[in-house]
C-alpha cells in the first residue's frame, strides 16, 4: 500500500511505553511527561508557525480589506463578510468553482482513476517488456519536477506542438488547443501527469487479491467482466476509496500545470480556484479576494481530509 497510509503496528514490534511505570508523586509524573514530550517541540513550533499560522492568517485576512498596494496596504481594517459577498457577486468566481469541479471530476475522478485502474489491470496480462516500458514512461511523467512536466505538456498541446503535427500527418488540421479548448488540454495534461499514482496504488491492491478466488470464479463460468465487476473491484474497494480521496486532494491543489500551460486563460476560461486566487491577489492586487478564495479552498480541503481520515481511523488508533 501507499506510504500515506499509516500501517498498523507490526506484530512482534515493540510495545509502546517502554519504561515500566514506577510509583512516584503526581508532580514527578507531570514533569516526566513534560520531558518525554519535549522532542515534539521543534515539530510543534515549525507546524504551528508555518502551517497553522497561514491557515489562521487566511481566515483572519479574508475578513479584512488588505491589498498589496495603496493606502490599505499599511493598516488593514476589519470588513466582515465583504470579501465573500463581493466574491460571490463576481461572475468569475462561480465560473471558477464550476471549472474546478470539471477539472476534479474529469481529470482526477474519471481520468486518473479509470486509466490508472485500466493500466494496472492490462499490465497483469501483458508482455513483460511492454509492461516495463509503460511503467517507466507513466511513472517518469509523474516523477519529473512539476515545472518540467508542465513545459512538456505545453509543447505537446501548443498550436505548433507535437499533437498538431501528428494530426497533420493524418490530414487533420488540429485546433489551437490551449486557446480554443484550454480546459480539455489541462485535463488531459493532468491525466498524463498524475495517472502513475493511481496505477501504482491499484497495481499494489490487485497484487493482494488472492488468485484462487478469481480462478474459482472462472471455473464457475464467470466471464472476464463479471470477475472484474463482482470479485476484483469489491475486493479492492478500500484502495479505490482511498485513491479517489487522495487524487481529488492532489488535483484540488494543482497550480503549476495550468499556470504554465494557459495561465488561466484565455481570459479566465481555465482559471480553477488556485489560479483565480493567484490572479486576484498578485495580478489584480486584491489580496483580500485571493485570501477569501484560499480560505474556501482550505475549508473544502479540510472537509475532504475529514472524510478521508475517518475512513482511515481504525489504522491510526
Amino acid at each position: 500500500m501507499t506510504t500515506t497510509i499509516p500501517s498498523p503496528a507490526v506484530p512482534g514490534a515493540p510495545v509502546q511505553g517502554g519504561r515500566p511505570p514506577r510509583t512516584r508523586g503526581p508532580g514527578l509524573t507531570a514533569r516526566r511527561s513534560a520531558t518525554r514530550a519535549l522532542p515534539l517541540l521543534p515539530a510543534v513550533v515549525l507546524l504551528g508557525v508555518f502551517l497553522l499560522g497561514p491557515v489562521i492568517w487566511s481566515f483572519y485576512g479574508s475578513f479584512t480589506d488588505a491589498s498589496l498596494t495603496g493606502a490599505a496596504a499599511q493598516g488593514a481594517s476589519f470588513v466582515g463578510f465583504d470579501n465573500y459577498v463581493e466574491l460571490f457577486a463576481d461572475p468569475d468566481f462561480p465560473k471558477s468553482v464550476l471549472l474546478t469541479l470539471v477539472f476534479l471530476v474529469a481529470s482526477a475522478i474519471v481520468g486518473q482513476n479509470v486509466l490508472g485502474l485500466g493500466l494496472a489491470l492490462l499490465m497483469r496480462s501483458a508482455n513483460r517488456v511492454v509492461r516495463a516500458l509503460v511503467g517507466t514512461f507513466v511513472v517518469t511523467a509523474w516523477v519529473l519536477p512539476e515545472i518540467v512536466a508542465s513545459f512538456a505538456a505545453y509543447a505537446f498541446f501548443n498550436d505548433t506542438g507535437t499533437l498538431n503535427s501528428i494530426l497533420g500527418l493524418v490530414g487533420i488540421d488540429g485546433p489551437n488547443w490551449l486557446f480554443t479548448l484550454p480546459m480539455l488540454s489541462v485535463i488531459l495534461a493532468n491525466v498524463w501527469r498524475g495517472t502513475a499514482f493511481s496505477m501504482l496504488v491499484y497495481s499494489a491492491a490487485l497484487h493482494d487479491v488472492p488468485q484462487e478466488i478469481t480462478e474459482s470464479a472462472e471455473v464457475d463460468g464467470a466471464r472476464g467482466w463479471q470477475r472484474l465487476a463482482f470479485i476484483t473491484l469489491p475486493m479492492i474497494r478500500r484502495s479505490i476509496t482511498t485513491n479517489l480521496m487522495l487524487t481529488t486532494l492532489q488535483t484540488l491543489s494543482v497550480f503549476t500545470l495550468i499556470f504554465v500551460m494557459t495561465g488561466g486563460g484565455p481570459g479566465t476560461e481555465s482559471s480553477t480556484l488556485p489560479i483565480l486566487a493567484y490572479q486576484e491577489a498578485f495580478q489584480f492586487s486584491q489580496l483580500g479576494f485571493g485570501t477569501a478564495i484560499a480560505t474556501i479552498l482550505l475549508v473544502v480541503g479540510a472537509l475532504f481530509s475529514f472524510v478521508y481520515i475517518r475512513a482511515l481511523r481504525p489504522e491510526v488508533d
Partner: protein
Amino acid sequence: MGMTSPSQRVLRATSNGVLLLVLVAFALPLVWLLLASVDTSATLSVKWPEAFTLDNFTTVLTPELAFVPLANSLVISLGCALLTVAAAVLAAYPLSRYRMRINKPFLYGVLFGTCLPVTAMMVPVYSLFVWLNLIDSVPGTILFLAASSLPMAIYMAKNFMDSVPVTLEEAAWVDGASMLKTLTTIVIPLMRPGLAVVFIFVFIGAWGNFFVPFVLLLSPDRQPAAVTIFSFFGQYGSVAYGQLAAFSLLYSLPVLALYVLVSRSLGGASALAGAVKG
C-alpha cells in the same frame, strides 16, 4: 504459464496493443524533451534533429543560467530535508515509544496536515511572510517548505521507528542513558535506511517545488532552478526551446536518479506512491 489457451492469447495481444498505444501517448511529451535538448533548431513539436549536438547544454552551462540556480536549489532542498528529518525523528521518538495523552490528537493533527492543499494557501502564506518580514529570504522559504513536508515525514519516521525493536533501548535505559543519547546512539543508527528514504522523499519534493519559491523569493540570484526555468521561458522561450529542454533535463536528473535509488531499495515503485506528490 506454459500452456496458454487461445482466449488467453487474445487477451494478451489486446492488452499489449492497448498498452502500446498508451505508451506512445505518454512517451511523446517526454521524447520531445529529449530530442529538443540535442537539437539547436528545436521547435515545439517532436522532430528528428538534423544534427545531434550538445551545444544546447554548453550554452546553458554558465554560472548565471545554470550553476547559481542549481546551487540555490541544492541549498533550499538540502536545508529543507535536513531540518525536516531532524524535527521528524525527534517527534517520532516519543510518539513511537511512550504512550502519552497527546499522541492521538497529535497524530490526527499531523494526518490532517498531510492533506492540507498547500498550493491553495500561498496567498495567505505570502501576506504572513510580508508581516514576518521573510519575503525574499532563503531561510524563510526553507522553513516553510520544511513545515509543509513535516506531517508526511513524521508519519514515515514514526512507522520506520515502530519497526525498530525496543529491547536494545531498554538495556541502555537500565544503564542510565538519557532519551537523547538512546535516540542518537541506538535508534537512529538502526533506522538509517528508513531515514534515508524520508530524506530523499523530502529532498525530491523541495527540489521540484515551483510555486512556493516563485511566490516567496523575488531576487533572481536567490531563486532555485524551478523558478529560473520559468523566467527563462518568459525571456527566451519563444526562440530557444532546445536550451530550455536541455536545462530542464539537467534540473530533472537528480530527481530521477534519487527516485530510481529509493524505488530500488524499497523493492518497487509502489512504496513511494503517495509520497512524492505529498
